[in-house]
């Protein structure tokens, strides 16, 4: 990791009010991403991973906290200033069926961002769309066709191509392979990793699939109910998870290997509601090693080894 981080998120919080109740969707989220680094955001439903991804690009407005991109504070930018920054930051969506307009040709979809930004002539823009299609291994002639003519995997490639036409430096990929069949998933994962390396992209990769995250990410942030539980380089996280939640999450993933050791640790109970989060550590109600003290204070995210952070007061486990 280089010295100056490319993206810095500090104390990000997002609250909603629903029927008079305050929902703390995100609380105290701080992390950094270096240039060229791929950081994974993992967690279950309601962990806040998508809200973080959207807040970083200001597709939702954070309630408080700061997001600095290449030295510029984004949260205070005007709409016009933000629009000028957006070409450098792009988003890949989960659902390739919902994220492409059925009434626009692929060419129109791919050049829309360039039009808005006023980049190039009409011919330049179409050329860039064709190049982007080739980058994702689709034929350049696809510019004249419509989204419904493509399979799920091909549509997701189009979604990736759309993010690439503006030549971004930073991409938020939100569950980009979750809607795809296994055999197609691998094609798209390989493509994303290849593009990331070839173009030197910096990426925030959101997924609930820890195996995919391990394969594609340099570092991983583990979320639970809107808070960070653990941050670690991916190799370390999988070999030596430190937070009890990370351990449980890893052990819950079913393995197709018939010779795998099955020492499954099954967490009891449900993920609590953000309208009524537990006091102290939000994970304590399901934590197999929770103590009395866990109910009293919110554990801070501490650096326990260089580059490794965890939010848990139990240092006596191993």
């Amino acid at each position, binding site marked *: 990791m280089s010295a100056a981080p490319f993206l810095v998120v500090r104390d990000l919080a997002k609250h909603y009010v629903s029927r008079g109740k305050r929902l703390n969707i995100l609380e105290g989220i701080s992390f950094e991403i270096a240039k060229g680094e791929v950081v994974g955001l993992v967690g279950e439903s309601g962990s806040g991973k998508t809200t973080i991804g959207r807040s970083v690009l200001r597709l939702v407005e954070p309630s408080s906290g700061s997001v600095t991109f290449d030295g510029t504070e984004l949260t205070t930018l005007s709409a016009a200033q933000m629009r000028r920054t957006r070409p450098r930051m792009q988003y890949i969506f989960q659902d390739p069926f919902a994220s492409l307009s059925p009434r626009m040709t692929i060419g129109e979809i791919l050049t829309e961002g360039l039009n808005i930004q006023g980049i190039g002539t009409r011919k330049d823009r179409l050329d860039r769309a064709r190049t982007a299609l080739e980058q994702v291994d689709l034929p350049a002639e696809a510019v004249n066709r419509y989204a419904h003519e493509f399979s799920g995997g091909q549509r997701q490639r189009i979604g990736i191509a759309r993010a690439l036409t503006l030549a971004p430096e930073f991409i938020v990929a939100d569950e980009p392979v979750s809607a795809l069949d296994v055999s197609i998933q691998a094609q798209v994962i390989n493509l994303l990793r290849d593009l990331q390396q070839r173009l030197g992209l910096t990426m925030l990769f959101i997924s609930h699939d820890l195996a995919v995250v*391990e394969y594609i990410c340099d570092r991983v942030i583990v979320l639970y109910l809107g808070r960070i539980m653990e941050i670690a380089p991916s190799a370390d996280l999988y070999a030596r998870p430190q937070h009890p939640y990370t351990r449980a999450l890893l052990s819950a993933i079913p393995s197709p290997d018939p010779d795998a050791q099955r020492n499954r640790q099954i967490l009891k109970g449900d993920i609590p509601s953000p309208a009524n989060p537990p006091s102290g550590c939000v994970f304590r109600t399901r934590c197999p090693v929770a103590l009395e003290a866990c109910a009293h204070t919110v554990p801070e995210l501490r650096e326990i080894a260089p580059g490794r952070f965890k939010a848990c007061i139990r240092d006596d486990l191993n």
Partner: protein
Amino acid sequence: MDKRLEPILDIHGLRTIFRTRGGEITAVNGLDLAVAAGETVALVGESGSGKSVTSLSVMRLLTRNVGSIAAGSIRFKSKDGAVRDLVTLDEEQMRRIRGNEIGMVFQEPMSSLNPVFTVGDQIAEPIRIHRGADRKSAMDVAVALLDQVGIPDARRRAGQYPHELSGGMRQRATIAMALACDPTLLIADEPTTALDVTIQAQILDLLLKLQRERGMGMLFVTHNLGVVAEIAHRVAVMYAGRIVEEGPVAEVFRNPRHPYTLGLLASMPRLGDATRMKQAGEQLAAIPGVVPSLADMPDGCAFSPRCLYAIDACRQAVPPLLAVNAMHRSRCIRWQEVSR
């Protein structure tokens, strides 16, 4: 599978077709599959492979005038020992089997629960219909079932509506509903797909336990190979409407003999191994191409256009399921050369 056990479900030559605007398509094409008492058989495949259509065919829940069983038999052994072909039964007779002899659990618990009735009422309903129990004793059974499926404070929960329960709780409730009349066969169609991974682990654990305790047969439909390894004794891998490989789970996953199974297993990143692959610069072994459209199937083996082992003979005729050994079969003429 213990060969002495007579199957409680025996599907033979099942062909299920759908009428679409573009003409008739065959979603399941000549499927043979048996499930014994106490045995869990997983039907695994990707979108459009025909795995869910197979389970809907067994339950005779295909949308009328759209999908229908064109050929084959589905022999089911009732609790009274009588063996009947479900394909020939009328709707009235099927209704006596569904929810009574065959329990069903689907992917989305919210769509199998009625939002305007309490959870307890919905579990008690089949007990009243099939067993003729009165309201009070049916509700007592419902509460006991909720307790059995691990819902704490079952009496209070029985009085709640589905929206008051979490996703995991709702799926537990639909399992309780499926078990209400002590079925001998449980059909579970992607029952953990909509759930988070820690909740999925809970539900798989519950299904394993219930299946063992009750000695039910279970037909488990899923796209997740990891889930198959956790829950099933035998697996049938489907591709484009046909079983392409079947056998005991450990045997098939350790020693896959069909290029599609091999490809599926290789295309999944494995926890713990992904770091090594990344460092070695290895790519995931993706299967090239896309699943063929059922309306436009290739000649011969449906997998041949994507198969690295394909030769001319593969494009000539659909290969039969060939015996790898007594328990293990592969629909590949080159199965002897296919290995990890």
